[in-house]
């Protein structure tokens, strides 16, 4: 469904060229939950943005349904590390406004927005501004907004790393729980993280990247039955964590 072919990217910073991604190739098929793991600055967020169509590869390309992905499409949406909510819109308006391009009737937009806020457990906070929401609640709005667009692919850019561990835990379970719902149109997830435990807990496949310039140095297929909550103390869970860690170490 998504295919990254020899993607290479560099940025210019104060007149020196910094290579961020070097010949990155992998593919994600429908229904996959893939997590890209790597040290800070390895270009994983950039890779995610290239998939979203927000950035362009210097050479190589990303294919979506076999078509080059060059500009943002409602079929691929994103959840941001800092939530990316519009501070001048309430929780409800933040979700509603996202649908403006797809749905012209305001009534219909509000219906969809309301049901998605309910889905992430934000009933009663519809008219609250982001300023007055906690970090966890903001990310719930972010999730509701992304899913309201009914995308095929959901990209998550370190979605839990600016939350405290307890909140992060709750939201991880929320995302997995929502993913399990049969009514959901979205079934392909690509997440970027530097937290190995998180990656193993959530993903079907963990793709390991090296420090800058980011290259793929390993892939771990996580074969733990879901829901995985009950395996968190299980040796099999730690086996996968160790495997990913090893790949990270090797990639240095």
């Amino acid at each position, binding site marked *: 469904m998504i295919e990254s072919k020899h993607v290479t990217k560099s940025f210019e910073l104060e007149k020196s060229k910094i290579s961020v991604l070097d010949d990155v190739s992998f593919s994600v098929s429908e229904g996959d939950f893939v997590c890209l793991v790597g040290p800070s600055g390895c270009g994983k967020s950039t890779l995610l943005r290239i998939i979203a169509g927000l950035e362009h590869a210097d050479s190589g390309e990303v294919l979506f349904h076999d078509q080059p992905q060059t500009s943002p499409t409602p079929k691929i*949406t994103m959840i941001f590390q*800092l939530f990316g909510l*519009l*501070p*001048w819109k309430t929780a409800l308006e933040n979700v509603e406004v996202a649908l*403006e*391009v797809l749905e012209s009737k305001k009534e219909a937009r509000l219906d969809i927005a309301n049901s998605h806020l309910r889905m992430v457990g934000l009933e009663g906070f519809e008219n609250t501004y982001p*300023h007055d929401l906690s970090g966890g609640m903001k990310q719930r709005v972010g999730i509701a907004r992304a899913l309201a*667009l009914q995308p095929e692919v959901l990209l998550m850019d370190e979605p839990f790393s600016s939350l405290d561990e307890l909140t992060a835990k709750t939201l991880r379970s929320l995302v997995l729980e929502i993913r399990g719902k049969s009514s959901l149109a979205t079934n392909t997830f690509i997440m970027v993280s530097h937290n190995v435990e998180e990656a193993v807990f959530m993903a079907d496949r963990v793709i390991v990247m090296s420090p800058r310039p980011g290259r793929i140095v390993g892939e771990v297929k996580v074969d733990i039955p879901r829901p995985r909550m009950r395996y968190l103390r299980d040796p099999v869970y730690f086996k996968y964590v160790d495997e990913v860690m090893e790949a990270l170490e090797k990639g240095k």
Partner: protein
Amino acid sequence: MNFVDNPEISSLPYYTFRTLLRITITLGISIAWGVPFGILASTNKTASLVLVPSIDLLQSIPILGYFPVIVLFFISLFHGGEFGIELSAILLLFTSMAWAIFFGVVGAVKGIPVNIIEAAQSFGVTGFKYIRHVILPAIVPALISGSTLAWCDGWFFMIAAEYIVYLGTTYSVPGLGSYLAKAAYVYNDLNLSVVILVLITAIVFYLNSLTWHRLMEKAATGTYKPVTRIGLSGLGKLGVVRPRWLHLGDRIHRPKSLILASKWVKRYTRLEKAVALAISLAAAFLIIYYIAGQIPSEVGFHEAFEDPEFLSLPVYTALTLGRLAVAYVISLGIALGMGVLAAEHKKFAAVFYPIYDIGQAVPILALFPIFFVYLSRVFGGRLGLEITAIVVLVLDMIWYMFLNVVGAVKSIPSEIREVGRLLGFKGLRRITHIVIPAILPAIVTGSILSWGTGWNTIIFAEYMPYEMELSGGQPLSLPGLGSYLDKTGYLPPPKGNALRLLFLLGEIAAIVLAMEGLVWRRLLKKFEKYRVEV
């Protein structure tokens, strides 16, 4: 006739020298006053309670409003001698230049990090040593940026300070400002006026980019936090202006005192403001006492307010507010368009930044006579003056808005931009959903500054005291608060009246403070929530 043929043209270098000297001396005085008082106000609690709010209040009254009072004082003190006029010109400049230095010093001293203060204390650095080794190094950058702002303010007010018509007599000191005024009003020579204006602009621009800009770059090292930078850029290759601050995001130069404007709004309690008001009233009372030679009696009050025009004061106030509002709306509209385009498209930036750089260097008050001479030829005296007033106000207000808009658009977080792109917002929808709301706080701060400078300019712009052929040898004025204030200040009694002058000044101060409390403060509070937390 030559292009420029004027008996005084050979004195141009001398005039340039005098004006430069005058502004430099005033800058020196401002620093000599601002540093000790700034340090005092920021280290001593009692002094701070009295000094900071009262100086802030003085600052909020349009500086040109003081002019008649100061001129009155010095000219009567020196019986119209040249020294008295020079002193009053310097004092007028001082009242426009000193605040930036004072607040710069206060801000810098207050901004010394606690760990530095604690380190100094634990090493036994106190008293004079503390000032020498901790405070002075800390205020150097603020002093430089404050001086830059003061320097620009000085050029702005120079033309008003060098050429004053008081009680029907013209008092002027040799300088570029007075020469420009003479070229326009006495010689009625448009070519000469333009030449002088271009000269002034070039000098301001050159000195800004050469001296201040470099000093700012130097000062930026060794500070605890980013210095507000001057926006005037150096000359690039081929003399094309290179906007150096282009990529500096929110660290770009905020002219005059963006920070000050928002601080006064937030900083003081009602009590502090009341203390400041009481002090100012006492000072005003002393001035009246000196001028009137006695405490005003009942008769004095009657004389002051029996002026037939006094009944029109509400109308005058409305007219002046209307002019300011019209100019504000125009400059907001243009600045918004220019600012968003310049911030988002390099092509527009390449055109608009140089315009800004030069536009900012033009002393607006100096544009006034030129526009007037030109526009009154086309539209006649009265309408010409009306249009001139609006045009000059727009040119004065627009740069504050422009700079704030550019800065704000540039500092929209990339995540918010990306969200807009992901959601497919393009064109108008992107502007209304993303760009405009994101820059609303900056528009408010820009508006506060625009109105502040607008009040100054309109006092100057509504009244044309010079007896020109154009106006049939009569002083020309637009009905309004500004012209009424000028007449009350500069004309002989019974039109001129010290008590009424103070009343009008009080009215302006009241309007400025009321607008701040009722409009700006509320908007700032409302939009505070809109700030994107990063």
